[in-house]
């Protein structure tokens, strides 16, 4: 299998305020990319723009999955096309059980042409699959009966997102700070889970401040974002450097981007998700 996610000159605004100012990025199926950068540099914005959040307006540029132009699709169509994003703070859906939610989601993603009201994956078959995935991820079976993200701890939310990813087998996954707020053991488990699902079975974009997740999932490419642009790209060693030494070198080397970053931070308002 060979798929390519191609982001070309992407400009994105939120509430008419420009956040991304020309992002170019190519991820091939089977590759792991790290996206790093200081607060407010636009990392999550890139993820949400790829996933299709309606508040993130694409003002210029495009996102391609193979021959399909994602920018013309709704979020659900992108999901069915093979895009997945593990959210930093996924929302709770009270009254909807994880198992029912995942069964519906998996059916739609696996049968992209399914019409509303048509049959879902048979219950027995789905339960068996869910059970085995949950065992693989060392999750309590009780989890499937809980309401989606409702009252979940930080660690449970992240694991639920990884479970969802495992059930949907996307072509490309964006992990938005899947390691934040987790203790060392939880990060190890999350990292191992991602490795277990198979990094070679998808393209991965790991958004992170830290390098914990990257220790277990070493990236082939590391991108540094500043002021809404990718200013530098390197290998795994760049991720290590940024973790050890911070962003001072980057900020000095790209004063224009740094100025834009400061400007965005100054007027940053709480943005959803």
């Amino acid at each position, binding site marked *: 299998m060979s798929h390519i996610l191609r982001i070309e000159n992407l400009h994105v605004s939120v509430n008419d305020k420009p956040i991304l100012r020309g992002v170019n990025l190519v991820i091939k199926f089977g590759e792991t990319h790290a996206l790093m950068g200081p607060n407010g540099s636009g990392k999550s914005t890139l993820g949400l723009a790829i996933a299709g959040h309606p508040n993130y307006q694409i003002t210029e540029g495009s996102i391609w999955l193979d021959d399909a132009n994602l920018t013309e699709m709704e*979020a659900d169509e992108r999901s*069915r096309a093979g895009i997945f994003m593990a959210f930093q703070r996924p929302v709770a859906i009270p009254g909807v059980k994880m198992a029912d939610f995942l069964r519906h*989601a998996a059916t739609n993603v696996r049968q992209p042409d399914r019409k509303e009201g048509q049959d879902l994956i048979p219950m027995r078959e789905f339960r068996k699959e869910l059970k085995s995935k949950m065992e693989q991820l060392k999750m309590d079976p009780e989890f499937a009966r809980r*309401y989606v993200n409702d009252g979940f701890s930080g660690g449970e939310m992240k694991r639920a997102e990884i479970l969802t990813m495992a059930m949907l087998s996307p072509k490309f996954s964006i992990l938005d700070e899947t390691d934040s707020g987790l203790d060392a053991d939880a990060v190890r488990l999350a990292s191992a889970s991602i490795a277990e699902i198979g990094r070679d079975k998808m393209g991965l974009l790991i958004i992170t401040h830290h390098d914990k997740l990257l220790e277990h999932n070493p990236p082939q490419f590391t991108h540094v974002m500043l002021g809404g642009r990718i200013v530098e790209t390197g290998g795994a060693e760049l991720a290590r450097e940024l973790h050890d030494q911070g962003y001072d070198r980057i900020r000095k080397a790209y004063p224009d981007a740094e100025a834009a970053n400061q400007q965005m931070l100054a007027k940053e308002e709480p943005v959803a998700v």
Partner: protein
Amino acid sequence: MTTSTLTDRLGSLETFNQSALDRFLEKRIDPLWLSAKRKEAWEIYQSLDWPNPRDENWMRSDIRGLKLSKFAPNVDESTQIASGSPVRLLDGVDVSASARSVNGVVVSETLDEKLSAKGVVVGSLSRCAREHSGIVEKHLHSLICPKSDRFAALQTAMWSDGFLVYVPRNVRIELPIHLHAALGDGQVDLSHTLIVLEEGAEATVLFESSSPDPMASGFHCGGVELIQHGNSHLRYVNLQDWGKGSWHFAHQRASVGRDAQLQWTVAAMGSRFAQVDQRVQLVEPGASSQVNGVMFTQDRQHLVYNTLQHHNAPHCNSDFLYKSVLQDRSRTVWRGMIKVSPGAQKTDGYQRNDNLMLSDAARADSIPGLEINADDVRCTHGSTSGRVDEELIFYAQSRGFTRSEAIRMIVTGFFQQIFDRITIESVREALGAAIARQVRQYE
């Protein structure tokens, strides 16, 4: 609008008048006590005005569109038409008894012989008023006062028929009893439901109302009385699904005795306008009541529920949860009151109303209230109203749900808390399916 114009419009009708009453009484074969009660209520009806729109109970009710003169009391039984009104609560359910009315007159009754031998009575209230006069005389309109308002007076005077369920002492009926009321277009239903559980009795009653034409415009002015003596258990389900052009006025009352338990599930989906006055009185220590209310409205439907949980005795428990989902330009009003009488110590009262609006034009009024006259009680209440959260929709969409599927799922989840409380599986399923059918396509 002033009171007088409303009175003019509703009161100047030729249809519900003295000669209609005389003709109605002439056709009936009622015991003397009942005829007397009807005449007394008629006097009250004549002395009362229609509800004043400034009255707290009616100020959020718009009944200007009601043209009572379009309806006539159902005197002549030959107007009864057997109709294809949908029945939703019977799927996969075995019943111990059933009865059915068309336009407020019972047309069929069945009852398991074994139950009949134990003294259980189920069926036409008119028939039972003659054949079981003692039971009916003792309980009928014992909780509903004709002076409550003009609709109550009219119903007390001219109730046409309805259902009696009587369960004698210590008789436990395992299988549900099913009652169905059908109301045709342009027709009138002035029926009454009377359920009496003697000490230690147990029963499940599934009551549903519907119309052959989903848009039928009928007039229902009814009463429900649930009377529970000590240690009895009643599960009462009321699915109101009248045609969406119908007018629905009802006084619904329960009286719960010592250590008795009531679970009352209300699903309001039908009618163009509904005004329901629902009161549960906890009259002896240890009585407990749970009310689960589901409202789902669309188009220009306007449903008004005034509920009262009245603690008249110590150590009682009441738990009311109403949830509504509103589409289009529909409107719901929920006004809840927990009233604790002096001496009703150790009361545990809870009331909550949550509303989810699927359109900008929908409106939900939620007015919880407490009136507490005892000092050692625990009463809590709360309400929420909001639009469906776009972040939830996006999250579901990012997992492959269409927008429409996402909204449907969020609505189902919103009601789940109520479904979790409903202990009868077939009712849960029937309500879930009825709601899912009504959720519109959202693009």
